[in-house]
């Protein structure tokens, strides 16, 4: 397929890996912020290609992984209301709340349906005028414009039985929170490619300017990631810290003007939003703006809105910050598996724990950690 195959050529990958090994003069830790990158890194075994002195830390950029227990509970409570059709992306079905998941709620009679697009949820609302259709909106700036355009469409068509349970989050406050956490040790970031198609690369410029760390915004194919790691290594060895853009075919400095406009029209920032494992982060969440408040499920339904502490056994917080690796969690692969997840990092294929579990590179990773690297 065009724009995919040419970024998967094995011979170039090997040369690139050799070049990276050649250029890397000391142990380096880079974080890929985005779950999409985590997915590619595991699917194509990129860690096996990289030299031993480069460690990839898998960051908090998987929106399914950071949704807190309390919000899942709220979603379930809406799904259980009589007359509701509750719609969600597939990944969110298994995310555990404090007692059950949406999948459990569905099994016990709630009308929970998987959709590919928020537009499909809107279609369902039009087809079922007697029911109230709620869409569980999840994701960073990548996905938020899609929700926004869908809400605008609902308004235009006067679809009153459609609403959104909004859990959209923004990447920059999360990055700031990470950079400010004292236990974090990183040499640079792979910047999220798809978020950046919307917000551009300019919002990351504070990272080198204020924290002295390089950022390379990266595409999602194996060669994209290898090239971006190479660019990061070059910045480090040359003593530079800049925002560079490897994903120029989809990303520019200023982002997508139209997408940003609809975001500002439909959403406004929340004072605080809770992230699983990371705690409450100021201005990191979005809710529907006053103009579209009648499509806000939180106002339409009574939700418990309780804050629930993360499960004790779960170390998702440390995992998301890259302080611990998944296999260091006591319940990894035993009590916590993709079938019976305890933490949300085990749910989505973009979550670090699920990625380690599914792609079975454990023995190699254990070897490495035993060797003390």
């Amino acid at each position, binding site marked *: 397929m065009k724009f995919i195959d040419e970024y998967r050529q094995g011979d170039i990958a090997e040369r*690139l890996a050799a070049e990276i090994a050649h250029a890397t003069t000391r142990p380096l830790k880079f974080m890929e912020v985005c779950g999409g990158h985590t997915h590619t890194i595991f699917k194509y075994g990129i860690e096996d290609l990289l030299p031993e002195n480069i460690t990839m830390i898998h960051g908090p950029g*998987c929106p399914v992984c950071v949704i807190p227990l309390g919000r899942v509970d709220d979603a379930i409570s809406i799904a259980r209301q009589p007359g509701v059709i509750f719609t969600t992306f597939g990944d*969110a079905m298994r995310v555990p709340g404090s007692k059950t998941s949406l999948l459990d709620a569905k099994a016990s009679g709630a009308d929970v349906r998987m959709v590919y697009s928020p537009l499909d949820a809107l279609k369902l609302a039009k087809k079922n005028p007697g029911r109230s259709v709620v869409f569980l909106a*999840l994701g960073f700036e990548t*996905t938020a414009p899609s929700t926004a*355009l869908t809400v605008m469409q609902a308004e235009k068509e006067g679809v009153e039985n459609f609403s959104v349970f909004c859990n959209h989050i923004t990447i920059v406050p999360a990055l700031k929170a990470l950079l400010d956490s004292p236990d974090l040790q990183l040499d640079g970031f792979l910047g999220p490619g798809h978020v950046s*198609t919307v917000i551009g690369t300019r919002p990351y410029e504070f990272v080198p300017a204020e924290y002295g760390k390089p950022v390379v915004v990266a595409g999602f194919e194996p060669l*994209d990631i290898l*090239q971006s790691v190479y660019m990061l290594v070059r910045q480090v060895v040359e003593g530079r810290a800049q925002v560079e853009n490897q994903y120029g075919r989809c990303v520019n400095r200023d982002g*997508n003007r139209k997408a940003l406009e609809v975001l500002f029209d439909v959403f406004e920032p929340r004072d605080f939003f809770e992230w699983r494992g990371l705690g409450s982060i100021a201005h990191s969440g979005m809710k529907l703006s006053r103009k579209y408040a009648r499509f806000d499920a939180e106002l339409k339904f009574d939700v418990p809105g309780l804050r629930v502490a993360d499960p004790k056994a779960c170390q998702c917080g440390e995992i998301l910050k890259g302080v611990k690796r998944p296999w260091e969690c006591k319940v990894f692969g035993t009590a916590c598996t993709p079938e019976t997840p305890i933490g949300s990092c085990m749910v989505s294929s973009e979550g670090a724990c699920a990625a380690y579990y599914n792609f079975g590179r454990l023995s190699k990773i254990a070897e490495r950690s035993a060797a003390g690297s």
Partner: protein
Amino acid sequence: MCLAIPGRIVEIVDAENSIAKVEVGGVRRNVNVGMLDREEAAVGNYVLIHVGFAMTKIDEAEAQETLRVLEEIGQYQDEFEQFKTTSE
């Protein structure tokens, strides 16, 4: 859920409501192109598709440039190999 795929616009289905048909690996589907400018949402263009929406037009010239750089990195390695093997 944050993954996106490249597809080619094959038809403008409903300009008023920003709906276009795209083809991805032989499969066709309507997507919403409301995030793109009119000239970006033209038949023949490649766009990046995520949850039923085209997020951005894929820039061919930039894509070529990335590939050129990628190949160049490889070439340097070849030269380096030759340099090494002929140095003894």
